[in-house]
């Protein structure tokens, strides 16, 4: 005979109060997105949603943080338009949930991960990095994410893996900048970026899922993007759907578009100018007044101590 025992522990005693009181939000944050993926729940990850559990990392620069408003309204994300204000305007209905990232190529254990899987497997941390755009402006951003190296180790690269190639989502229905037309960004889609394996494995190289303690806004590359703080911003590819370990050096979108102007490495380097403008100095967004001179750009964006050794013996004018 089946006798139903009274429950001796009430759910409220297991679940922290704060969480059960905020159940709906908790569900969204902790991975109900998988269910949404099956079409059961119309869940959208809202920018502005808190990302719980990020520990403060020691990777932080002392510079004043760039205002959230500028970080989220002054963006280069040509998939949503080429004006700096376009991404914030045209990405509002972008669906970043559900989302899978394929990690494959020269690896022993290729896999497809839901963002939620990644967040479960990798503890997230907050890091304050400088971001230097190739257009000679810069920001200071508190990212939330985990080291790319952790993910790459998980899939066990083979001995043939020498480079990592990243791909952004290609979805012209959602990304107006990718629609064919006479004019527009003039780039080949999908957006491709690449790193040498040792650059990808460097502890500074981050996969970001948030900023300012919140879920990554769409215009900043939701739901997952790369952050390589010692390289020009365009290397930090957004809305990644594929990470492929490869033998040969990938050809990035900007290299393809203008090989004379954009090299594979694209390390921040005040001594190597963009053919059309100087890289010696930069404008810090939201900081400098109208009448203050630009600030000097630092080699490797100030991260030379950590990364210069990766390029020992290389002619950085040739490998720009």
């Amino acid at each position, binding site marked *: 005979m089946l006798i139903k025992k009274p429950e001796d522990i009430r759910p409220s005693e297991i679940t922290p109060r704060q969480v059960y009181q905020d159940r709906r939000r908790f569900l969204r944050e902790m991975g109900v997105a998988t269910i949404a993926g099956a079409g059961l729940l119309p869940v959208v990850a809202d920018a502005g949603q808190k990302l719980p559990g990020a520990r403060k990392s020691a990777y932080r620069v002392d510079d004043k943080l760039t205002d959230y408003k*500028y970080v989220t*309204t*002054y963006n280069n994300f*040509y998939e949503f338009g*080429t004006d*700096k*204000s376009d991404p914030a305007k045209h990405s509002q209905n972008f669906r970043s949930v559900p989302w899978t990232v394929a990690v494959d190529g020269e690896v022993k254990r290729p896999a497809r991960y839901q963002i939620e899987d990644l967040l479960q497997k990798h503890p997230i941390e907050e890091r304050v990095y400088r971001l230097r755009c190739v*257009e000679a*402006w810069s920001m200071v951003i508190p990212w939330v994410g985990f080291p790319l190296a952790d993910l790459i180790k998980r899939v066990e690269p083979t001995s043939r893996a020498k480079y990592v190639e990243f791909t952004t989502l290609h979805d012209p229905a959602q990304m107006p900048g990718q629609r064919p037309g006479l*004019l*527009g*960004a*003039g*780039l080949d889609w999908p957006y491709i970026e690449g790193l040498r394996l040792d650059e990808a494995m460097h502890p500074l190289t981050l996969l970001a899922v948030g900023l300012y303690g919140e879920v990554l806004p769409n215009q900043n590359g939701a739901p997952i993007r790369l952050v390589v703080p010692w390289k020009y911003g365009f290397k930090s590819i957004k809305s990644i759907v594929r990470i492929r370990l490869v033998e040969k050096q990938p050809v990035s979108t900007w290299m393809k*578009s*203008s090989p004379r102007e954009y090299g594979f490495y694209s390390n921040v380097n005040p001594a190597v*100018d963009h053919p*059309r*403008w*100087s890289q*010696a100095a930069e*404008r810090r*967004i*939201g900081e400098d007044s*109208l*009448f*203050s*001179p*630009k600030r000097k750009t630092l080699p490797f964006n100030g991260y030379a101590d950590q990364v210069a050794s990766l390029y020992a013996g290389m002619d950085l004018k040739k490998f720009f």
Partner: protein
Amino acid sequence: MQPQHWIRFVAKPLLFVAALIPLALLAERVLHDNLGANPIETINRYTGDWTLRFLLLTLAITPLRKLTGWHVVIRLRRMLGLFAFFYASLHFLSWIWLDQYFDLNAILQDVAKRPFITLGFTCFVLLVPLAVTSTNAMVRRLGGRRWQLLHRLVYFIATGGVIHFLWLVKSDITQPLIYGLLLAALLGFRLWDSRRQQIPALPQTH
């Protein structure tokens, strides 16, 4: 009112005020700290845009006059041209002051090394003699033919201005292309018009 009076007492003052509206809007944004994330870039682009717009407006006068037969509009051309020079000066000033902070070394290097700056700088320098010789006294001193020859430089300056913009953009050429097409239409009209005038009337052969 006579057309001359209408131009002098109504059209010109109105145009003068209207041409200052872009500057007033910019000043308003400066005062309210509403120039966006990159204020210097905003000012620089804004003044550059208005330079090109006034150059195109100046170049639109002759086609307008010939197509409509409304000859008095020619009397607005000088003011439009001077406003093109005015916004070009602000554009130049925003570059040497706000952008370069009077770093003469950096300025000279940029002029020498960066084709889009070399071209923009050249066009600005070439605008100076046109502005200086815009007075009635200077037209008389130079003589109409020589004056006109000199002022044809504006065709080169406007073309250079559009190319200056084209060379600056990273990959999206939409905007410079729009300016380019408008300019092509305005210059194309002149070409078509001069051809049309050169064709001699067929001799009557009977």
